[in-house]
């Protein structure tokens, strides 16, 4: 799989948080789309960047590596990285790779926003 099949939407909720809407596949070839969205969402000193995984259709280990890179960027900017909309399958992958220990996972957008406030 060498084609990027990820589209990202960025929503600025308020001064505190931005939501990045993920639609499609996250693989090593998604770097540009994911990093551009993160850069836009993390601008102007928001305290939290929230990843919306409701539209995630496929993720391989290259994709998980990209999420680690996003996490490093968020930590460096002293921002929290949160997530919601993960299916049971992708929740298990977050547990397996222990990313759930560093990325706060919530069931809904409202829960994630409340945590970010």
């Amino acid at each position, binding site marked *: *799989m*060498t084609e990027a099949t990820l589209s990202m939407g960025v929503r600025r909720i308020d001064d505190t948080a931005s939501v990045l809407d993920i639609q499609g596949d996250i693989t*090593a070839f998604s770097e540009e789309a994911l990093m551009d969205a993160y850069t836009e969402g993390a601008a102007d000193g928001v305290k939290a960047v929230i990843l919306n995984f409701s539209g*995630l*259709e*496929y*993720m*391989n*280990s*290259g994709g*998980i*590596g990209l999420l*680690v*890179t996003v*996490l*490093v960027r968020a*930590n*460096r900017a002293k921002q929290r990285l949160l997530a919601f909309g993960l*299916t049971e*399958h*992708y929740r*298990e*992958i977050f*547990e*397996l*790779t*222990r*990313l759930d*220990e*560093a990325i706060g996972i919530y069931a809904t957008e409202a829960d994630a926003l409340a945590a970010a406030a």
Partner: protein
Amino acid sequence: MAEQPRDTGNWAKPTSTLTVTDAPAGAPNLVDGKRLLSPVQGFGKMWQKTYKVRLDGIETTPQAVIAEWRENFASFWPKGNDFYPPLTGLEPGEVALIKAAGPGGMKFKTGVMVLYADDESFTLMTPEGHMFAGWITFSAHEEAGRPVAQTQVLMRAQDPISEMGLAMGGHRMENKFWEQTLANLAAHLGVEEPEVTTTVTCVDRKRQWSQAGNVRNSVAIRSTLHMLKPGKKTAG
């Protein structure tokens, strides 16, 4: 019933600790009961290292390269390093044992779990008691119409001793290790004079002192103790 994601079956099942089953007799088993560590749980600076070889002059596909690599993974390792694959092959969730040359002539005894595998890539993840915390992805793809084989490591040293070891020659040894592995793979596939390129990026220069306690599972200490111990613990 909801449709299953396409990657279902490519990932290992969630596990809290590693269990080694059916390992070859004599393989050093120091990973039973150990937890997996991602780069998030490591101590040292975070590095991404990418090793690449163009498979020029042969007719093959990324899928064929990965099938061959997975099947004969151990045979491509440089001499003096032993990889004991699970009897069932490099399938998601399986654990392999390792005896590898480390800095200063040491032999490191550790292991890895197959985190992910599909027909174009597979990934090994390290447990406590490895030199680094992270994963190594082996993949094949096409660049400019030509097949390329790649190894990519995303890692932090697990503990302060390993961080020191990596700085004092460990990184250099690791680079040589994967460059030689890729050259061996390419030669096996029929490439004449394979050329491996290496790209090293420091993703995070910060050391995570909150993870310094990983030293209790230091591969250097545990491997040394294992070597000195009468009646060594082995699998089988």
